[in-house]
């Protein structure tokens, strides 16, 4: 049995969210499903990555194309999704393409927001879960360890993760550019909708210590305060709260500006020249653009912030090309290791097979060779061994050459040798089992 690497599943590029959510698997379900899937589908190794954007199985087994179809059938059975529906939205990749896919996923090159940092942690979690379940062997261990290394290189050697990718995070980055560290800064959320909630989460994460919420509806305002922390103030206290806040994020549903120039003039006089950053993410706008004529008032509206997000995303896409080159280097390292893993034992098996035939034939002819003296017998043995070695020389040279060429070629040759010489891969399985015993013992360190 050969070790063919396989990546199969569906993601945000191939399937709609309605289908992805039906296949999403919790940690508990994965723990139950992995050993069962490995046993039923006769896989050697497997792991499942299940996030909001992808449900993918990375596995090692005989014939990746057959195993890929079986994995999809298995997922369909477990999640009660029709096989046809699943197949029409799924992808199956094998060999180099599977490795490339895994490396690119870990490096966040296949993410919806290219360069987002969460995916690496999610793949690491999935890998740890599979290892604890006992379905990780030498191939996936090596593959994922190198994929994590590639992802780290991508993050440190390129700017793919630079620049915020959402409106609230851009607002926080701009606030940092104005105030530096946000610890000690006061923030005010005007309105208590979803955008206010998201912005509040980012502000708290950035270290804002004093957070206030002003909202027309007290119930909704207080609910947001319970979620984020901070304090609620009545709508009538808006001016007082504006005086205290360094960062103001406004997202009410008001049809007229709720923060106008006369109000901000009074506020700025009270603030004695301290700068204020106004973020207006409401449509229609909450803040009169005239306030920017006041000194130390910095106003950004939703279009301004989205413009920055757009620039950042453009920059990330450009960096993705450099990142892809880095990933290719790591993929090449893994592929070379994987090929040598398949070819080396085969050559040894082939040599042992030939040696066994020669010895058996010499043994069979021992009666006829009995008349020969020791020197003559040795000469005959040398000739027979020489003929066999010469016959095997070219196939073995081609096999060695194939390990540094296209992987598809090397796998085809492996299969051809197995068929032509009737090799059963016992030697290779023994070697693979011995190799897998090493990462099972040392895997925690090798990939953490």
């Amino acid at each position, binding site marked *: 049995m050969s070790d063919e690497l396989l990546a199969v599943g569906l993601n945000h590029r191939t399937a709609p969210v309605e289908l992805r959510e039906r296949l999403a698997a919790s940690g508990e379900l994965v723990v139950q499903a992995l050993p069962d899937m490995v046993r039923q589908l006769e896989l050697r190794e497997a792991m499942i990555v299940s996030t909001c954007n992808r449900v993918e199985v990375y596995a090692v087994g005989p014939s990746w194309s057959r195993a890929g179809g079986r994995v999809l059938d298995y997922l369909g059975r477990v999640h009660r999704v029709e096989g046809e529906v699943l197949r029409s939205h799924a992808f199956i990749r094998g060999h180099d393409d599977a490795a490339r896919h895994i490396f690119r996923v870990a490096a966040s090159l296949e993410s919806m927001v290219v360069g987002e940092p969460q995916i690496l942690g999610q793949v690491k979690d999935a890998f740890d879960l599979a290892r604890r379940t006992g379905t990780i062997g030498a191939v996936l261990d090596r593959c994922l360890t190198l994929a994590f290394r590639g992802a780290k290189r991508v993050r440190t050697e390129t700017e793919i993760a630079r620049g915020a990718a959402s409106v609230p995070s851009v607002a926080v980055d701009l606030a940092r550019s104005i105030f530096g560290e946000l610890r000690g800064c006061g923030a005010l959320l005007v309105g208590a909708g979803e955008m206010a909630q998201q912005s509040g989460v980012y502000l708290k994460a950035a270290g804002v210590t004093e957070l206030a919420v002003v909202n027309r509806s007290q119930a909704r305002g207080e609910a947001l305060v319970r979620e984020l922390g901070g304090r609620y103030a009545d709508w009538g206290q808006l001016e007082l709260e504006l005086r205290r806040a360094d960062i103001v994020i406004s997202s009410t549903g008001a049809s007229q500006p709720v923060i106008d120039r006369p109000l901000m003039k009074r506020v700025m006089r009270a*603030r004695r020249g301290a700068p204020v950053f106004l973020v207006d993410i409401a449509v229609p706008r909450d803040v009169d653009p005239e306030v920017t004529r006041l000194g130390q008032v*910095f106003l950004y509206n939703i279009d301004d912030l989205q413009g920055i997000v757009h620039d950042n995303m453009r920059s990330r896409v450009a960096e993705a090309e450099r990142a892809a080159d880095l990933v290719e280097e790591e993929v090449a390292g893994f592929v070379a290791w994987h090929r040598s893993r398949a070819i080396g034992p085969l050559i040894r098996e082939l040599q042992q097979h030939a040696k066994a035939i020669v010895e058996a034939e010499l043994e069979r002819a021992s009666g006829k060779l009995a008349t020969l003296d020791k020197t003559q017998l040795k000469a005959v043995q040398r000739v027979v061994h020489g003929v066999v070695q010469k016959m095997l020389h070219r196939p073995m040279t081609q096999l060695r050459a194939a390990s540094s060429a296209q992987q598809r070629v090397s796998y085809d040759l492996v299969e051809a040798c197995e068929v032509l010489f009737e090799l059963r891969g016992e030697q290779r399985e023994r070697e693979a089992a011995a190799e897998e015993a090493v990462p099972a013992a040392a895997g925690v360190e090798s990939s953490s």
Partner: protein
Amino acid sequence: MLYPLFILAALAYGATTFLYGTNSSTASPGSPSSSGVRERSRRAGDISLAIAGLLHTGCVGAQCVEGDHPFASVFLVVSFAALSAVLGYFVVVVALRKNVPSLGAILAPVALIGLVLGVLFGEPASNHLAATSLLAKSHIGLATAGIALLTLAAGVAAVYLAMERRLRQKIFRPRPGGISLLGLDRMHHRLILLVTPVLTLALVTGVLWILQLGGPEMLGPRWLELAAGGAAWLASVTLLVTRAAFGMRGRQAAGLTIIALLSIIIVLSFYGVRG
């Protein structure tokens, strides 16, 4: 010895300007440049500026050996003040642990101009006021320190104004590790806190020196220089007072600092023309 040092220092300042320029050109919004490239060019700029500063120090030393000490003429003062501003830049960067490559980019050409003036026109003029008394030396020394600090403060103010303008025009793109607008404002305020007492002492020693030389009558046509020097001092005092009393800061404060430096440049220009 002076001329080889001068040539090398001038080249180093030129290289510094180029390297900081490379840094800012790779920082355009949306450009796919890598932070590694920017970081390397910033470091190279800092190293180049440090080398230029050392060579500049060598020039000042060589001039001292030839008898042209830093306070012997206004152009030597300008050269020494520019060198002091460069040293001040490194003090600021080390003290705040913040990268301000834009400030380095401003200081490098300023220091180059100071160096060129000091070397080309540094020879003491025959008709300059005799700076032999302790009072005169104190005045020139304090004025030189004040000019250096004010140059640094004006550099920070210029960086502040550029950043503030980009923020207002919505073309600013946040980058990690850079200094914030508020950080620049604080740095500017601290420098003005140093500038004001130094300039005040320079003013007092200057007045005493004039009195020692014979009183206001001997000033003759120098009233404009005095007025410009007084304006610079007044601007620095105004910066402190208005910030304390009315919270004036930001764009207005930065603008006033640049006006103060322009006043000093007027004073130095008069000295230069007369020398």
